[in-house]
């Protein structure tokens, strides 16, 4: 029988081994080398059926839960939907008059700002898995040509970037994630000749604006509601011209050499169901 001293030593040995293992994995992961990502892909694929089945079974309960905690939002949505139904009823008459026009409208349902760039539609299958994650899971993966770093969009604008990819699914890091930074251009509203000002933006957490904290000098004129697009600078992983949002607040930085610009994203991250992954990679 092991004495208390020996037992204590063994416990400490176990703890040290596990902590060292965690730190080693963290280090390998931060260096973005292959093994951790490969294991992650396998784990994601193994758990995919569990997540899909649970999502299918749990969807009605999740809706019920959502209704219970967001009753006022549901009521507001209902009113908005009722108004929309009324509008559609009125439009139905016009639609029946010209079927050809209807087909043309349907053909333009594709996202126009992508300007012919190849993209693949994907369904958002789940949100973050734990409290400190911002990622979304989508039901398309490397088999559909998706690679890490590709832009994810909706018809409203930029959603985020592909963070990890497995065979039939991928994780998306939204632009609201403080750990994601990307280059944007701010344009003067209504001025078609404006070449735009490039800055580096990053998220500030779910439900908050994104912030351009670097690149907008103090002598540049930036106003509320100015549109913001992806910049397409050479180091950017996104194609240029994807709408990001509109300027919500402008304030000088503490050293007053630049401006801190907050941007209200176009995309409503609470209501994401279908997104498109832009199959575009920057030319090396």
């Amino acid at each position, binding site marked *: 029988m092991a004495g208390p001293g020996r037992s204590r030593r063994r416990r400490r040995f176990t703890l040290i081994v596990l902590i060292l293992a965690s730190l080693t994995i963290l280090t390998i992961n931060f260096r973005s080398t292959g093994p951790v990502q490969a294991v992650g892909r396998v784990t994601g694929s193994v758990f995919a059926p569990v997540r899909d089945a649970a999502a299918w079974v749990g969807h009605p309960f999740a809706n019920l839960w959502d209704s219970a905690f967001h009753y006022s939002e549901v009521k507001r949505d209902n009113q908005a939907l009722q108004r929309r139904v009324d509008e559609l009823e009125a439009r139905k008459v016009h639609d029946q008059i010209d079927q050809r026009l209807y087909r043309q409208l349907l053909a333009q349902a594709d996202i126009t700002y992508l300007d012919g760039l190849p993209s693949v539609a994907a369904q958002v299958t789940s949100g973050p898995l734990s409290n400190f994650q911002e990622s979304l899971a989508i039901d398309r993966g490397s088999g559909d040509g998706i690679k890490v770093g590709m832009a994810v969009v909706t018809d409203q604008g930029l959603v985020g970037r592909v963070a990890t990819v497995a065979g039939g699914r991928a994780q998306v*890091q939204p632009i609201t994630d403080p750990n994601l930074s990307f280059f944007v251009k701010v344009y003067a509203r209504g001025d078609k000749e404006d070449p735009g000002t490039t800055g580096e933006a990053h998220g500030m957490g779910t439900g908050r604006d994104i912030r351009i904290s670097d690149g907008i000098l103090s002598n540049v004129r930036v106003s509320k509601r100015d549109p913001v697009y992806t910049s397409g600078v050479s180091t950017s992983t996104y194609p240029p011209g994807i709408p990001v949002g509109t300027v919500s607040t402008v304030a000088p930085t503490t050293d007053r050499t630049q401006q801190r610009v907050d941007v209200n994203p176009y995309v409503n991250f609470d209501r994401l169901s279908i997104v498109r992954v832009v199959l575009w990679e920057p030319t090396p």
Partner: protein
Amino acid sequence: MTVLRVAKITFIGFLAVALQVSVAAQLPIAGAMVDVILIATIAAGLAAGPEAGAGVGFGCGLLIDLLGAGPVGMTALVYTMIGYGVGVSQIGVLRTSRLIPLVSATIAAPVAVFAYAWIGEVLGQHLFAVADVPTVALVVTVSTALLCLPARAAMAWAFAEDDVRQIQGIGRW
């Protein structure tokens, strides 16, 4: 350790991860979610001691890290220490009051949340901006307090010796 014991621990670990990704992730409360992995880790520490707590924290934490898009190994690191700490806090506890594990779990849960956020900041992850940490700590603490006793019972079952083999005198391996 018997094969059956390993199988039971593996089953409980996978069940905890499955519950986290399927149920807890879909039913947030005030923007925060119940942390089933933390509950399993604390329960293992309470039921079977520091090594069990650290082992479950490491295994389940690593699995949930691999499934998400965050840094792999961070949950494993934090929950290993929490599981170990909870286990150590039970050493020398002679009374079988239900209050003791409940108090341990109620202390360990917010410590785990703040430790995770702090270590994330140290590693440059800006986790205090990703989540409303006090709200997360509150939701996690209350849910852990409510669920730690049934979870401890499940972990006690998983870590229990193989009764049949013991009765029959068949050796362990």
